[in-house]
């Protein structure tokens, strides 16, 4: 059942403590905020799977666990399949009547980092969505392989420096565009797909609720600022997220049934992308004169993408 009281942040943030504060994520890591926002938006029983990555290694270090709900980790790529296996078992056992409480609602959720979602686990995610299981996949998109020390992923944007796409005297960092996974997942025909951000916690909670309530496979990409690899002060996580959403570097929108697009947040003042880039260490080199063209390119890409989203929203097709 969805929690209805999401007006008051204090009330919302404490209403359902199923994710313990004791974990070893970095201070300021947005992963834990996103997990809490998911856990707090529903009273239903949750079966959660996690891909290998920061969230997983920081929340279930034997003999401890941060998860006060059913939780499973198998590998880096296959959390989507593991949770859909559990979902299939739930169906089978419901039919046979072998569950303790046959009627209690259960929701199935998989978490993956951008590396495990956009890259190595892409096939497993695609397969699970194609098969139409009733589950929600949430990607914690910090745009790098944080757990292995900040390598590039196909979610890393142009111009970022990473340990495997380094900026140097002959390079401005990552050269390739970020993969548009949200569009790809919408193209799978998933009934609900969205891009959400933890600073906009009401819309994030609503998006999660929609995904949980929608029957069938749902995909959500969440912006998850990483203090360690993006290089900013841990106290500034939400500030960074505000900059991400207000520059439209991360536009927030949903796509229903693969085509109906709704923009979920329209900044009153759209900020320039420099404000966002300048607030973090991984883009520092872009402010050298010879790299000005990269900033211009990023801004151009943002404008074009925003234009496209608005047109699609208007077109209602």
């Amino acid at each position, binding site marked *: 059942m969805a929690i209805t009281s999401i007006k008051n942040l204090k009330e919302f943030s404490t209403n359902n403590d199923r994710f313990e504060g004791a974990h070893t994520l970095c201070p300021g890591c947005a992963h834990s905020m996103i997990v809490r926002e998911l856990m707090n938006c529903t009273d239903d*029983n949750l*079966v959660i*799977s996690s891909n290998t990555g920061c969230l*997983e*290694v920081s929340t*279930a*270090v*034997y*003999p401890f*666990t941060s*998860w*006060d*709900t*059913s*939780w*499973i*980790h*198998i*590998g880096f*790529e*296959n959390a989507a*399949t*593991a*949770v*859909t*296996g*559990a*979902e*299939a*078992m*739930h*169906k*089978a*056992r419901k*039919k*046979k009547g*072998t*569950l*303790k*409480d046959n009627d*209690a609602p*259960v929701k199935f959720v998989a978490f993956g980092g951008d590396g495990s979602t956009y890259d190595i686990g892409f*096939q*497993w995610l*695609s*397969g699970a969505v*194609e*098969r139409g299981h009733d589950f929600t996949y949430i990607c914690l998109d910090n745009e790098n392989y944080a757990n292995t020390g900040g390598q590039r992923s196909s979610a890393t944007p142009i111009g970022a420096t990473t340990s495997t796409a380094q900026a140097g005297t002959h390079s401005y960092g990552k050269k390739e565009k970020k993969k548009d996974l949200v569009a790809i997942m919408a193209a799978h025909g998933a009934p609900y797909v969205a891009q959400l951000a933890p600073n906009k916690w009401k819309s994030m909670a609503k998006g999660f609720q929609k995904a949980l309530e929608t029957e069938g496979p749902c995909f959500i990409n969440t912006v998850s600022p990483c203090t360690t690899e993006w290089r900013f002060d841990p106290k500034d996580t939400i500030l960074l997220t505000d900059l991400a959403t207000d520059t439209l570097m991360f536009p927030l929108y949903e796509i229903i049934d693969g085509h109906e697009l709704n923009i979920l947040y329209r900044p009153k003042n759209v900020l320039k992308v420099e404000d966002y880039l300048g607030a973090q260490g991984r883009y520092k080199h872009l402010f050298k004169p010879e790299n000005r063209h990269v900033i211009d390119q990023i801004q151009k890409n943002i404008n074009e993408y925003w234009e496209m989203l608005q047109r699609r929203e208007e077109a209602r097709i």
Partner: protein
Amino acid sequence: MAEKFDLNDREVWDGNYAASQALRQAQVDVVAAYPITPSTPIVENYGAYVANGYIDGEYVMVESEHAAMSGCVGASAAGGRVATATSSQGFALMVEVLYQASGMRLPIVLNVVNRALASPLNVRGDHADMYLGRDSGWIQIDAFNAQEAYDLALCAFKIGEDHSVRLPVMVHQDGFITSHTAQNVYPLTDEAAYNFIGDFQPVDDLLDFSRPVTYGAQTEEDWHFEHKAKQHKALMDSRPVIDEVFAEFEKLTGRKYNRVESYMMEDADVVIVGLGTTVETAVVAAEELREEGIKAGVVGIRVFRPFPFDQVREALKGAKSIAVMDRSSPGGAMGAFFNEVSAALYTTDTRPLVTNYIYGLGGRDFSIDEAKRIFKEQQANADAGHITTDIQQFSGLRGPHLGYFQTQRG
């Protein structure tokens, strides 16, 4: 309620069909599967049984074998009966998840129809995939024919799901030779088969929300070693349970299984030790040679993991010269099976002569004549009191003889 399926007391089934009937009678809750020759019909048949109401279960056709085993892990952790099937490349793709399944102590049953590993690409049977699984922490049971593929698949559920075991189990059969050859099979009634296995009793069930569980936690040097030691202990401790399940099965059917099968071993001087269909071929050769006065015997390894070290030692202690048959390319060493059997023999006082034959790769036929020739070579060793050929040689290979590691020739 599942529809009734008509069965005769005697059926003509191939090994794949036999294995799939075991899945039906066990009323497996979830099969997550991906097809590969020669094991494909096992999961196809499960799908057909679901489609026709013979099984109340969920058939999940995933996009790869890695996903098949991943789905099985999630399903098994959610507390129900789970099985799938694979071979060769599919097995290889599953390997990562095989370790994850056994580490989480999930009693999944995997029907493995043995097949060579590429390259070169080959759809026929050898045991390369079987050896690839040998350190993955699964119980591995080997069926030598279709009847056994059926019987042992039923036993596999009962063994793996036993609460003192809680381990995944593979049941192997030889690709095409067993999987695609129709034979007489005597099935149990549905009722007898299901009662033998019993209802699935969940433990640490993801769908029991009164007791939330964490599966697949992280451990480093602080605990990993202890977990692996406990897992090994669980495998070793499964031995009496396997014996009990086999004994119970014998009471029910009259068909007796042992972790090591011995044929004519009471007084055997020369022995072939093998796996799968090779055992039956060697038995026929031994019977024929007995008529010529050669005291030939055969040892077949039924339970490959946990390796029946004690029984192998016991079964072979009176032999003079032994051929250990590896149906897998050794890749720059002695055959893996040879090494294991030799290790068991090294600790006996009598310490017989042992040689290693690499044979039957990629489905190359292993004939009765070839088995006889190997027995005769062993007889020559026994007569000479030392190894007269090479310690390792390829048997049945076209072209020049390939042999390695010579001893002194007397």
